[in-house]
């Protein structure tokens, strides 16, 4: 397209806006983003749109196959389990427990972890060094193992799971943000800022934060997927949410008994987990690449 404007400056977008522009070119990324937004909406308004209440059991419709299979019925779109619970409704309610829970946990640990990371990163000396080494070692223990250890102290349960996952994610953010801030601090433009007499807060706001967005995005993606995987794994092991809560992992461990009778009760909740993590990964990776390109 020809450009008739003389003042080129107007067309220079901020790096972030440019990244967003780049992201929009990514078709798969956009599809995944819309899917993610859909899941988010589902999580929020799920209870109002689910066809049946959470604890609804239809005794006359046990182990109904999904509607597209023979013997399936449309009003149990994804079929039912051995207690006559509508699988679609269960999965919708489960979105709140699994995805919603993971989302909240990640948001909270993002806030707290970044705060600690930024403070640690901006400081130096002994304090920072201890934090650094401690986090290094703590991080070499995988989050699920940390969560299991925490659960073994707190005892099984949904709330304890969230708490455990929150605590297990904390070092991830702290360490990543700490690293990023620390690395940025040593760069020349920051030194220039400092020589200009900028206060630490100002350095943080205008110097560092815009440049570590990529870290935030990639870490949030990682944290979100690992939070979902951890919550569902704990649910599956029977250490997390307990029935009747339709947490996806819990649903799977529950339907383990139905492998022979109702394979769809095994495949469908698992699909929900897989798809959710897949779209988070696609969106996260797309955003990260767009940001990296946008920065250049």
């Amino acid at each position, binding site marked *: 397209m020809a450009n008739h404007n003389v003042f080129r400056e107007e067309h220079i977008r901020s790096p972030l806006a440019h990244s967003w522009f780049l992201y929009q070119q990514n078709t798969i990324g956009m599809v995944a983003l819309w899917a993610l937004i859909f899941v988010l909406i589902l999580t929020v308004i799920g209870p109002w749109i689910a066809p049946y209440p959470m604890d609804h059991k239809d005794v006359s419709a046990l182990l109904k196959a999904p509607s597209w299979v023979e013997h399936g019925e449309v009003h149990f779109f994804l079929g039912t389990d051995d207690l006559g619970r509508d699988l679609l409704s269960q999965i919708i309610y489960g979105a709140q427990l699994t995805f919603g829970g993971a989302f909240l946990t990640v948001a909270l640990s993002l806030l707290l972890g970044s705060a600690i990371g930024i403070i640690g990163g901006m400081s130096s000396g002994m304090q920072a060094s201890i934090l650094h*080494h*401690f986090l*290094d*070692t*703590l991080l*070499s*223990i*995988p989050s*699920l*193992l940390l969560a*299991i*250890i925490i*659960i*073994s*102290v707190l005892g*099984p349960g949904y709330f304890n799971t969230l708490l455990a996952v929150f605590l297990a994610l904390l070092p991830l953010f702290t360490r990543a943000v700490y690293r990023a801030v620390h690395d940025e601090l040593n760069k020349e433009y920051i030194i220039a800022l400092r020589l200009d007499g900028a206060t630490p807060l100002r350095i943080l706001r205008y110097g560092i934060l815009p440049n570590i967005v990529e870290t935030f995005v990639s870490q949030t993606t990682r944290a979100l*997927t690992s939070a979902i*995987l951890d919550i*569902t*794994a704990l649910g*599956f*092991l*029977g*250490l997390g949410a307990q029935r009747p809560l339709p947490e996806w*992992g819990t649903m*799977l461990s529950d339907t*383990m008994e139905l*492998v*022979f009778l109702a*394979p769809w009760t*095994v*495949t469908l909740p*698992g699909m929900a*987990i*897989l798809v959710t*993590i*897949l779209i988070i*990964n*696609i969106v996260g990776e797309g955003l990260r690449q767009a940001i990296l390109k946008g920065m250049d």
Partner: protein
Amino acid sequence: MLIYILRRLNVFVITLFLLSVVAFLLQRQVITDFVNTGNIFSDYQRYILAMLSGNFGTSLASGNPVLSDILAIFPATLELCVMAFIVSILVGIPCGVFAGLSRGGTVDYGIMTVTLMGVSVPAFWFAMLLMMFFSLHLGWFPVSGRIGLLYDIPVITGFNLIDTLLSTKPYKYEAFFDSLLHLALPTLVLATIPTTEVIRQVRASISEEMDKNYIKAAQAKGLNTFQIIKRHGLRNALPPVIPSLGLQFGRVLTTAMITETVFSWPGIGPWMVNSIYLEDHSAIQGGMLFIAAFVLLANMATDLLHLMIDPLKRNELYGKS
């Protein structure tokens, strides 16, 4: 080098110390028959001395010392993890090379899509699907355990593949093959994570190396692609792979714990979960310390290995990067 090792050891000891404090507080809290003198420091001292001498307490469920229980079952988990790493190298390197060579092409796209699926799939669900299809539907693989129970193989190393070959039974090869069959599906599930890691690494470094001038020189010399990769590409792409696999050990071990529960693999996973159910606190804290210490040790060993095989990293160490 020595200073580096000492520093690593230092961190290792500090972390274990913190973990042991947590474990100690847990024990103090819940075990009523724990001799409690009221002085928390002298209690801790006694506790840590017992721990250091290998006394993790007695499991309530089995009545055996916790450490001997762990040592009896841990080889099963380790065998699975080792197999997973072997498979991840065998599958990951060729896939990584192909993807790296055709960067942006169809092969690359296909391999990366599969890789993305691999990191996104929950291990326990993948295990269930494999079991449903390969074992129950096709009947190719057994659904559980380490070996057909009719094979009575005495435990020597705890690794079934080795024990079967060492045994003097007439059916030892049959038993070896049977334990391979039992390993197949759990290994496949467990190998997913390290394989994706290997593919990513190899792909990145291959596609980076292939653009370099010495490769072009080699091409000019008339070497074919296969030889180039074999002589030059891999030689530079591989060294970072091993250490990065080592760092995956913790994740693989945790995933093994989940995989084991699906395949009834008699390893540390079902044992730990069961201990939590039964509130068997000596077992929980013993298992927790053992696994954590093992993961930390593995990471440390990886670091040192990396140091030995990768000269660049050594430079980094001396501040000569």
